[in-house]
């Protein structure tokens, strides 16, 4: 609208009183009242430890590296979620293959103890049946087998043993030596 469309009057600024009177007081007495979040609000996530298989898809997808796969004890892999870095984008929920991550509407997360902000899910590792090394997680092995039963033969071998077995199979098949 151009200036000419708006008819200007000398005392027009008093209309502000009408506007204020009609809107009342809009201040929200938070935290004594409920905060204004809709049902679509994205808050922090909740990882269900019974469903998580430790695959790391969420770790790959997480933009700020709030989710990390770390080693807690020798060979034990854990998924660590640090709320301090989380941007509440819920990409992890999108990519989780088992639906282990659930989104909540929590955002009142301030605390004076930083360990409150860490969620760690410790996974039991797979043990290689040949060399005894610990690798990946047991649940991941079970999950892969349900998706593709053929791999049952070597899902409990660690990657090195698996590779050696494959090279030996080629050696046996075609002769010669693998150098």
């Amino acid at each position: 609208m151009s200036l000419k469309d708006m008819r200007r009057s000398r005392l027009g600024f008093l209309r502000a009183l009408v506007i204020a009177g009609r809107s009342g007081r809009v201040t929200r007495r938070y935290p004594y009242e409920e905060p204004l979040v809709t049902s679509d609000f994205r808050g922090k996530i909740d990882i269900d430890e019974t469903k998580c298989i430790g695959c790391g898809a969420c770790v790959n997808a997480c933009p700020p590296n709030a989710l990390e796969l770390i080693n807690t004890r020798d060979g034990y892999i854990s998924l660590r979620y640090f709320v301090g870095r989380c941007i509440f984008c819920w990409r992890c929920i999108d990519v989780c293959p088992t639906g282990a991550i659930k989104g909540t509407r929590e955002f009142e997360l301030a605390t004076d103890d930083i360990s409150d902000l860490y969620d760690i899910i410790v996974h039991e590792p797979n043990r290689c049946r040949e060399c005894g090394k610990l690798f990946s997680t047991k649940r991941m092995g079970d999950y892969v087998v349900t998706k593709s039963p053929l791999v049952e033969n070597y899902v409990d071998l660690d990657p090195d043993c698996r590779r050696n077995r494959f090279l030996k199979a080629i050696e046996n098949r075609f002769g010669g030596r693998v150098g």
Partner: protein
Amino acid sequence: MDIISKYIDTIKAVEPKADIHVSDDTVYATVSSSKLRDLAKAIYWDMNCFFRTCAGSDERSINGFYALYHIFGDDNNGLNIVLKVYADPNNPTLPSIVDIVPAADWCEMEARDLLGIEFSGRKQYRLILPPYWPKDLYPLRKEVSYDVKPQVIISSEKVGFWDKTSAGVAIPIGPYHPALHEPEYFELYVEGESVVDVRYRGFHIHRGIEKLGESKLTYQQVNFVAERICGICGFEHSVCYAQAIEKAAGIEIPERAKFIRSIVLEVERIHSHLLWIGVAVHLLGYDTGFMHTWRIREHVMIIAEMLTGSRKTYGINLIGGVRKDINEEKKQRVLDVLKIVEKEFTELVKTMVDVPQIMKRLKGTGILPREDARKLSVVGPTARGSGLDRDVRRDLPYAAYGYVDFNVPVYDDGDNLSRFLVRVDEVYESISIIRQLLDQLPQGPVMIEEFDIPEGRMAVSVVEAPRGEDIHFVITGRGKPYRWKVRAPTYQNIPALRVMLRDQPLADAPLTIASIDPCFSCTDRVFIVDKNGYKKRLDPILYRWR
């Protein structure tokens, strides 16, 4: 003959050996550096194009050279023209085009700071990096890791360090000042109450986002970083990036996704303009207008949260579409809120215009004449307030803007009042656009599941942010972008401030600075993050007044 052939002929007339290929709406021409200046003149002045930006790139791992891309835009015909020149890897020097194209000043200096390309024929200075940054450490070169922390001694820059030719007393506005919401430094030289000159020193919050996008992140993760370039206009950065990658890889996203992107873009525009109007009247002392404008804006924030899941930094954009859908109930809610916003906004603007002090201080202050606006290639409401009829939504339609009708408000006076009125009009236009989009929303999926992003493709994507046109230039790499250049609209508008602030009373300086709607987070792009995850800020200017 059609317009593309005309461009090809123009380029070949100056440089017959140019290597030209056309893709979509962009003409790529690789030329030799000796002919660069003539070509720039031909394209910028003879063909009457605007200058978008220039991006330097370290391509030594691909072809052994540094490259510089000058990107021009022909809005009337909906084209982008990219001129690529190579620079010698051992001693990268290129001719500067700043006397032909004054708008290229900053991006050349940025290429110099971040890549080490020297420009001949102009005065060079340090623009982005602080003065104590080591001389031969160029962050955007591929051998420099993204988390390198050089040993530096933090020193201060003195007042009036540019040159001594300015008269008057120096008044510092910034880096901390109540009128500014982000750190920047304007040095106004005043005589009495009248400003005679102004110097700008910005880039206090350069965060090295482009380097991050090229080293540590994957394609889909960069969307979220792009959204956080700016706190007010973040979504359009995310859309612009996603569109650039989709253009480069040739991905066609579903129609419904385009509509949803456009709807959320317009919601963002309404909230941004309401925010600006509140801030502008606050700077004039009229806090009642500020509070009520933001009260109306609250409705828009609630529907943004309902549509996307978050009041700001929506996080719904991915390459290939959007992540959240709109159902009938949400559609109805949006329409209801738009009705309320329109009614209350009209009443409020009428009241504000009747406050005598506001009109007196908006009219005739901060004038940007049309010729200066054209020379500096300003964008957005700053350009439309000075009589330049530029709007990327109409000229290079993207997303779903081809399906809607809207007017582009243009005012000729070039003062603060014109820019104010442009933004007021745009709010109404946005409301009308959202209504049209919701009406025509097509059925279908909102995301493409399977797609491929090949390496080595280039694309230029232009989006109309609330502040003007935003440009993302990408070269795809493997799993992540090879080069990602962001040119935010405020980057283009700040050099115009020098013209606008001259000979104005000091009282109007904060209002004039605010009238280009500066978004310095977009303009700058360093946070040093130490290993515990805490951010430390580079503090280049320790200002002391004596």
